[in-house]
């Protein structure tokens, strides 16, 4: 979808997620807390899609940035009395960006299994630090009592999650605009080039390694912001934002939705988190079983995820209707 031959204008169907989100705000007031969480994960999934779907970097450690952002905001709010939400976001973004650029610069020279292991090691290290530094992070009990001041001094985070929902929606919208812009730019086209044929990008003179470090850092920053949003919404941080599990969950969400198509990052978390909310509490065994089966099926039969299937049906439909028209003539 990105590239020199594609039209960058926003198509009507691209507004659909926003219409649905606003409708949900008015029609489902009792689910707004869940809704805010979904929005946060969409932003997180978008950041992963940027490096996985477009640049082709496979990682099991994206939670390192999410978690770092979450703890940065949490520690500031709970221990240092920095309660302004924007300051918290900014600090989280900076921290995640720093971690992104420093680890990216080191690990992006490797690939395949080695890269996978290194990303996993990094998030595990961050997890261990968060676990051991309990005076700062609360350790295994988590960090509660995170103070978040009203947004712009006007909108308090209320019990029903109304403020949180709108706040996350705005953040996601801005993140989406940014990523969309990026993907349609020459930089986005260049990323697609790296994913499609890295050797070729070298041969047209692209400094591939530095470009990867750059996009990795951008993605890390965005993941950090998503993490901070989660903290602000929950006013709590737990160890479950770090390590292999959240990375794996995120990967699953993105795969289910569809990798490398921008809106897969919207569909996946919605389906996954809502299903989890319903199923996981009552039937945890079936939940894992179902997700496992889904993953296997997606990998074997539907590489494009849910959106890929929608695409195929759409094409099949339009082909049938056009052939019907042709035969009618």
């Amino acid at each position, binding site marked *: 979808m990105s590239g020199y031959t594609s039209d960058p204008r926003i198509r009507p169907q691209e507004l659909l997620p926003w219409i649905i989100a606003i409708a949900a705000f008015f029609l489902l007031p009792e689910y707004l807390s869940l809704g805010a969480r979904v929005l946060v994960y969409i932003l997180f999934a978008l950041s992963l899609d940027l490096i*996985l779907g477009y640049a082709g970097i*496979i990682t*099991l450690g994206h939670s390192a940035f999410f978690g770092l952002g979450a703890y940065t905001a949490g520690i500031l709010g709970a221990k240092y009395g920095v309660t302004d939400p924007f300051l918290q976001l900014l600090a989280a973004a900076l921290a995640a960006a720093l971690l992104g650029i420093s680890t990216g610069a*080191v*690990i992006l*020279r*490797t690939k*395949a*299994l*080695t890269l*996978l*292991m*290194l990303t*996993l*090691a*990094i998030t*595990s*290290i961050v997890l*261990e*630090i968060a*676990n*051991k530094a309990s005076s700062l992070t609360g350790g295994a009990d988590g960090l509660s009592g995170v103070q978040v001041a009203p947004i712009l001094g006007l909108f308090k985070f209320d019990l029903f999650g109304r403020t949180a929902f709108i706040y996350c929606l705005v953040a996601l919208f801005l993140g989406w605009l940014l990523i969309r812009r990026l993907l349609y730019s020459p930089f986005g086209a260049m990323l697609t080039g790296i994913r499609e044929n890295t050797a070729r990008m070298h041969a047209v003179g692209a400094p591939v390694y530095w470009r990867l470090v750059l996009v990795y850092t951008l993605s890390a920053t965005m993941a950090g912001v998503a993490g901070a949003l989660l903290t602000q919404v929950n006013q709590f941080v737990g160890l479950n934002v770090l390590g*292999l599990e959240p990375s*794996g969950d995120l*990967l*699953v969400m993105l*795969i289910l939705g569809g*990798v490398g198509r921008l809106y897969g990052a919207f569909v996946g978390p919605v389906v996954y988190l809502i299903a989890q909310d319903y199923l996981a509490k009552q039937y*945890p*065994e*079936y*939940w*894992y*079983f179902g*997700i*496992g*089966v*889904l*993953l*296997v099926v*997606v*990998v*074997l039969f539907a*590489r494009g995820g849910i959106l890929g299937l929608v695409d195929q049906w759409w094409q099949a439909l339009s082909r049938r209707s056009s052939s019907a028209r042709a035969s009618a003539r």
Partner: protein
Amino acid sequence: MILYVISVGLSVTMGLMGFINLAHGVFAMAGGFILSTAMARFGLPFPLAVLVAFVVVSAGSIVLERLLYSRLYAAGELAQVLFSIGLILISMALARLVYGNLAAPVFLPDYLRGQVHILGRDFPTYRVFLIMFSALLIAALWFGVERTRWGAMVRAAVDNRAMAQSVGINTRQLFMATFALGSGLAGLGGALGADILPVQWSYPFEHLVYFLIVVAVGGLGSLRGPFVAALLIGVADTACKYWIPEFGAFLIYVATMAILLWRPMGLFGVRA
């Protein structure tokens, strides 16, 4: 040593076949459960039960390989990673349904319990047995890969699959057999280790990281690699937890990172 037995199986599938199989722990868990069931339900003696674990896991893995894995040999790493995560989730759910939340009980026979005197010190018999057993296994595997026709064929097929096929090696069967062996070894490791690493439903996920570290650090496609790495990781982990418990697993990851950055292909990696 348990890590070694399990990981060497993984090294066989990952390294020799080039398939990123995160679901390897599943086979280890299956081995442990089969051992437990065979002993508790059917009253099989320990050695026989271990053998059963190995055979059943190998056989089961052949079915999986034919039905699912073989479709993904040519697929990208991402597909392989996701697919194996899917398998892990499925198997964990099944294990929890069948065996519940508890670890599978394992009853060692009397002759493997207690202590033995070696050089004036006491060692648990079972651990000594495990170490000896692993040593034998290493020797056998090394012989198998380096010195037999099968080993030569596998190495040839991995180097250049098309070429191997054109000189008349049936790579399909060969990969199937190799996969079965790798998984069987995992099952064996899971079964033998059940006393030390308790087998329960969360097993494939909990130990995944360790298996992966061992293989990545050791290097793909080598037998010596995972052995040295398992030893290194095992010793380092125990030492760290003993001397500086406040750092916990921290140092293991740092060490892994350092080694991988120093030698991206692992200590004994052969494939560039």
